[in-house]
């Protein structure tokens, strides 16, 4: 043991160094967050709970029940049932997502030709039974109102999904747009 | 040249059988009935006559195909559905010289072994219908038609079938469908009508002018006939000249008369001493020729070399006051209206072309429209079911080839300078 080492031992230099580090951290901002009392703003485009886009014009879902989302879904958690209404239009009777089986790949959003389904940034959901996390059409529309309505939803679709949301238009049956769309 | 097809035409009673016989009519029939059918076909072959309907297919060859088919009965159909805009060459024969056609059909029927003949008459020729029917009745009475023609035991029955006004029924298979009572749409070829035609039996479809040449061939013999006009496609030919000429009308001239002669020598030149701008030489579905390209012989061989076709020999003359875009638009409107709708390129293409031309003509043309026109016409040509689509595409490509600047001007100026 050299004199140097001896002095270090006697005066607890290492311990003091350590305590200094501890002391320094008293004054640096912390990285952990006191979740759930303290919440983080999710990044834009993050994928959370599903929602069905509500068409502001009709007040109904934009979804036409084409079933492409269900076809693409790798965990097959989307179930769609459609029928014909009195005006001979296709209506979506049931649109159901088994949220517990979802893997949040967002293929459904990508597949949708009308931009009718989104993944909201709401990720904190839980329930005491499976039924609570079985989302029906009404609940999915409610999600839109709650989490994505107004500019937020539009921004989400415009920013993160192609074809861009301004390309989305639901043609009314029988009347097709006069001008053909440039395909992407 | 001695008139063959339009002989006796100035006689006000030329459609009467008495007048026709006075001028030597039905002598060829008597002569033909002395001959063997095969000899008649041989004479026709020697004459080298080619079908006058527009395609110029050697008549004798068509006949030989039909004769090689053993099925019976055979039908002989005269295509009198003269619907091509600018064409009115058959009309004088039908209205003024119907017995020439009847004689030609009886001789052809005898040669081909066909006992039933139909004249498929254009729906818009009501006068011709009455005249033809009258002539047929006379011919039956004088035993030039019937079950025992001239006592030779030859049978030939003839009737007139009037179309309902469809241009497409000038196409032989559509014509046959129409005669059968079906929608006038062309059929898949092969099998060709000479094997499977009307009611699935061998059927020969010939143009009025072609059949009207037959008596003359019998009269003077095939070899003498082949000396008339062009060597490749001999015979007299009816040219009908319309548009901006001094004397529009039907002219019977030897095949191969030059286009310039037809316009300037026979039709009296451009009206009001105007300047020639363009000529459509063979009916609307043949490509246009500019003023400097009219020194060509009007026959089946020389015209394709000049960049167009003889078609039906309907010369449409246009002078400097004519807007070529408007001509193309009008032509396309016709083709769109007359397309039968069976095949995709013609049905959709004619409509599309018409719409583009309409907007160019009305000053709403867009950049790239000319290329689009050529493109659409390009994918139509050669891919349609029958020649109608080809003709429609040909008009557009021909016009753009020769008068592109005029199209460009329309688009650039956003107006038609010929309109005031």
């Amino acid at each position, binding site marked *: 043991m050299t004199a140097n080492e001896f002095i270090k031992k006697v005066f607890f230099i290492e311990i003091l160094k350590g305590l200094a580090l501890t002391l320094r951290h008293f004054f640096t901002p912390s990285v952990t967050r006191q979740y759930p009392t303290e919440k983080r703003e999710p990044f834009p485009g993050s994928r959370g709970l599903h929602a069905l886009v509500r068409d502001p014009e009709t007040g109904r879902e934009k979804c*036409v*029940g*084409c*079933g*492409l989302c*269900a*076809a693409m879904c790798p965990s097959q958690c989307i179930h769609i*049932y*459609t*029928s*014909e209404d009195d005006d*001979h239009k*296709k*209506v979506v009777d049931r649109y159901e997502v088994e949220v517990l089986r979802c893997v949040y790949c967002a293929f459904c959003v990508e597949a949708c*030709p*009308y931009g009718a389904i989104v993944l909201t940034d709401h990720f904190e959901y839980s329930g005491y039974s499976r039924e609570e996390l079985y989302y029906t059409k009404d609940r999915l529309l409610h999600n839109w109102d709650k989490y994505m309505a107004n500019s937020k939803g539009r921004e989400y679709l415009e920013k993160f999904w192609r074809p861009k949301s301004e390309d989305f238009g639901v*043609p009314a*049956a*029988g*009347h*097709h747009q*006069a*001008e*053909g*769309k*440039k*395909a992407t | 040249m001695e008139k063959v097809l339009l002989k006796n035409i100035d006689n006000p009673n030329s459609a009467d059988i008495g007048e026709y016989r006075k001028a030597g009519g039905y002598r060829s029939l008597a002569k033909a009935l002395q001959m063997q059918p095969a000899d008649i076909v041989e004479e026709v072959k020697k004459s080298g006559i080619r079908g006058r309907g527009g395609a110029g297919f050697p008549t004798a060859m068509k006949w030989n195909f039909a004769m090689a088919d053993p099925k019976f009965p055979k039908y002989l159909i005269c295509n009198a559905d003269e619907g091509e805009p600018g064409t009115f060459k058959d009309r004088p024969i039908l209205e003024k010289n119907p017995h020439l056609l009847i004689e030609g059909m009886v001789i052809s029927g005898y040669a081909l072994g066909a006992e039933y003949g139909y004249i498929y008459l254009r729906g818009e020729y009501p006068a011709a219908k009455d005249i033809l029917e009258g002539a047929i009745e006379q011919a039956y009475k004088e035993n030039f038609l019937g079950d025992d023609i001239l006592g030779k035991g030859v049978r030939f029955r003839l009737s007139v079938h009037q179309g309902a006004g*469809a241009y*497409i029924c000038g196409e032989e298979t559509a014509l046959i469908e129409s005669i059968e009572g079906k*929608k006038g749409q062309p059929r*898949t*070829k*092969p099998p060709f009508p000479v094997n499977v035609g009307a009611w699935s039996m061998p059927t020969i479809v010939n143009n009025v002018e072609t059949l009207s040449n037959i008596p003359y061939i019998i009269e003077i013999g095939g070899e003498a006939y082949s000396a008339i006009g062009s060597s490749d496609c001999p015979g007299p030919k009816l040219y009908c000249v319309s548009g901006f000429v001094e004397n529009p009308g039907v002219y019977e001239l030897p095949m191969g008369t030059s286009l310039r002669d037809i316009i300037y020598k026979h039709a009296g030149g451009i009206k009001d001493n105007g300047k020639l701008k363009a000529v459509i030489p063979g009916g609307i579905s043949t490509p246009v020729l500019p003023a400097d390209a009219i020194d060509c012989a009007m026959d089946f061989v020389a015209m394709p070399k000049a960049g167009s076709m003889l078609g039906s020999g309907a010369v449409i003359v246009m002078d400097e006051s004519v807007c070529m875009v408007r001509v193309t638009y009008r032509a396309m409107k016709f083709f*769109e*209206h*007359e*397309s*039968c*709708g*069976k*095949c*995709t*390129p013609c*049905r*959709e*293409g*004619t*409509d*599309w072309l018409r*719409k583009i031309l309409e*907007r160019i003509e009305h000053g709403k043309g867009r950049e790239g429209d000319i290329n*689009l026109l050529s493109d659409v016409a390009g*994918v139509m040509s*050669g*891919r*349609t*079911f029958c020649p109608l689509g080809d003709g429609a595409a040909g008009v557009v490509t021909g016009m753009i080839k020769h008068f592109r600047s005029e199209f460009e001007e329309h688009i650039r100026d956003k107006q038609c300078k010929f309109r005031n």
Partner: protein
Amino acid sequence: MIEITIDDRKLSVEKGITILEAARRNGIKIPNLCFDKRLRPYGGCRMCVVEIEGGRKLASACGHPAREGMVIKTNSPRVRRVRQSVLEFLLVHHPLDCPECDKAGECALQDLVFEYGVPETRFTGERKHAQPDVRGPLIELISNRCILCAKCVRICSQYQGRGALGLIGRGFPTVVQPAFGEVLECDYCGQCIDICPTGALISKPYKYKARPWFLEEKENICSFCGVGCTLTLGIREGRILRSKGREGAGINDGNLCGRGRFGFDYIYSENRLRTPLIKEGDEFRDASWEEALTYVARSLSSIRDAHGPNSIGAIGSPRCTVEDNYMLAKFMRAGLGSGNIASSEAFGYAGALRAFSLSFGIGSNPADLASPLGRDVILVLESDPTITHPVFGLNILRAKREGSRLLVADYRETKLTRHSNTWLQLRPGTLVALLNGMMNVIMDRGLFDRDRVSGIRGFSSLEAVVKEYTPAMVSEITGLTGEAVTDAAVTFANAPRRLVIMPLAVSENNKGPGSALAAANLLILLGEEPSSLQVPAEYCNTYGMLEAGIMPRGGGMDVFDMLYKPGHLRALYIMGEDPLVSMPDSRKIKNTLRSLDFLVVQDIVMTEAAELANVVLPASSWGEKEGHFINAGGLRQRIRKVVEATGKSQPDWQILRNLGLAMGINLGAKSFQDITKEADDFIAGGRREAEGAPRPAFHPVAYEPEEPCDSEFTYTLVTRDVLQHSGNMSTRSEALKLVQAEAFLEINEKDAERHAISDESHIKITSRRGAVYLRAKVTDAVPEGVVSTPVHFPSGGINELTHFSGNTCSRLDAVKIERVK
């Protein structure tokens, strides 16, 4: 054979076929939108263009014959460019509503656009004016999706012989429309739905129900007529949503009729039985299987012990599988020791079998669905196979198109009479007279080989009987002219290859075994084989049921003794049959059923007879159980369980096995495989026994008029089938009910006028046995003095009017008509 090269592959193909056909047969795909092998080449779509080496133009492969040494390129850049441009042309006006369209996912246009790339849409301008949709009960036409390939128009007129759709207009504005753009009124075969390359023609019951990729496709044999078509069922989450044909599948090769395509939904009838029912007082109450079976077992045992096994009878079903019927027969014979096993076929196909065995000396004569093809003359006798056996009927129409002469003897106008060369419109029930008259002419003119035929047993008696049927006399009976009879006889006798077709159906009262015998006489006279007499069995398993032993044997009672003579039976076990609807003179049957001590009905739905039962047992229907059907051609086809059984229902054979166990009888079948094997062996044994060369004999039949009209009952009632229904099972189908929901009475315009009856008005129709009320359908399809009605509808109660007698020629009824005020 000729040698051609397609895409560098050297092929040897038959001479005369088209390039497309050559490519198809060798597995080379040439895209097309307007080709179908059943139709003549059209060449309209221009998708099938190919490049032929040395050719100036591209050729369309569908119409261009392959020639020796041709070198063909099906996928060159030039060809691909043309196809792309065709697709661009089509997409100019085809709406891009794929997300809503039912066809998306199996759309030919969509697939091709996917393959050739979405064209850049250069077309800007007004789109084609959208035509209004044409809605119908089962088929919808959405005009603006149409690409005018005209396949629907052509299959309807060229193949189906109907011509309900047409191309209206010319050129660009052309549309496919039914007459005058009104609702599509047709056979509702739905062939146009399958053939449509886009979603322009769609099935209404399936409309917007599911996307094709949600469906699981399973094949099953159709449960209606005796043809035995293969259906491709689309099932989503345990429910059958649609049925369609698939090219190359089954004997129908993709063809289907409306019943097969739309009628499967009878298994979802709200009348389906879900649990065993026991009658207490006048009401039924739900019971468990154990309770119900114990009750049935006890009752049957006590009746057997008290009155002997012959007091118990059973009725089998042509709708149940071979296994079910075999099990019923075994239960009766081996279990109870009774031979009283019968079925409704005693009124139908069993009569044909009797005729075969008497005349040709053969035990069976399976129909051949391809038999009409290549015959010179086809004689169809008082029936319309395009109604009773629609897919078989298609072959008759095809034979006619290919040059056969079609003679149809029928009292009424049908699709077949419209397509016939000669329509012999005879009076109903006079067929035997016509056939005898034809034989008279043939004998008279010596149009047969006398040396060969005179040795056949019964020839002299035939000669004696037939001698009386001179054309003049036949003319008097049948109402045909003497020349018509003579012409028909001469045409038929002079043709080298002849065929007679006459289905014998339970529902028809204008023919009987006597008619089949008379037809057999005619054929034997001309030296024909049994195969020239085509009597297709009526229902999906009529043939199999009879082969499985559902017929009275060993002194057992037949259906006439069992059902028309009260007191012969004490107990009756009915499986899958409603004698009150399907058999004549239902009042008598009702009396018999009421007189029974014990009646068990085992069925899929509550039937009229079940209402009278002591116990009703719920059986699993077609699609809910495994088994086999044997079609009219004797072909054994597997039917599969594709959906779960309704309620507590069980397969019939299983119920019978369990009942056996409850009675202490071991029927020996542990599993489905066991019973299949056993039934198979039984049928094979039966077929071996029936083997042997035909031993023809003449059994002359004299014409016997049946229940002639008199001053009170002035009309002849003819019962018949309608196209949309088969037996009474199809009346449980909601889809088919959209087209034909209730019974009606067809009456000639002049007769209607006489009674001041208007179309759709109610009329009372009375026979010597009873009266029913029906809606009138005023038509010129039936002649004056004849009224006609379908028997399918339980609510119609037609069989209250009909009667049953010993007459083998027909069992027509005289009726009177009154207007209901």
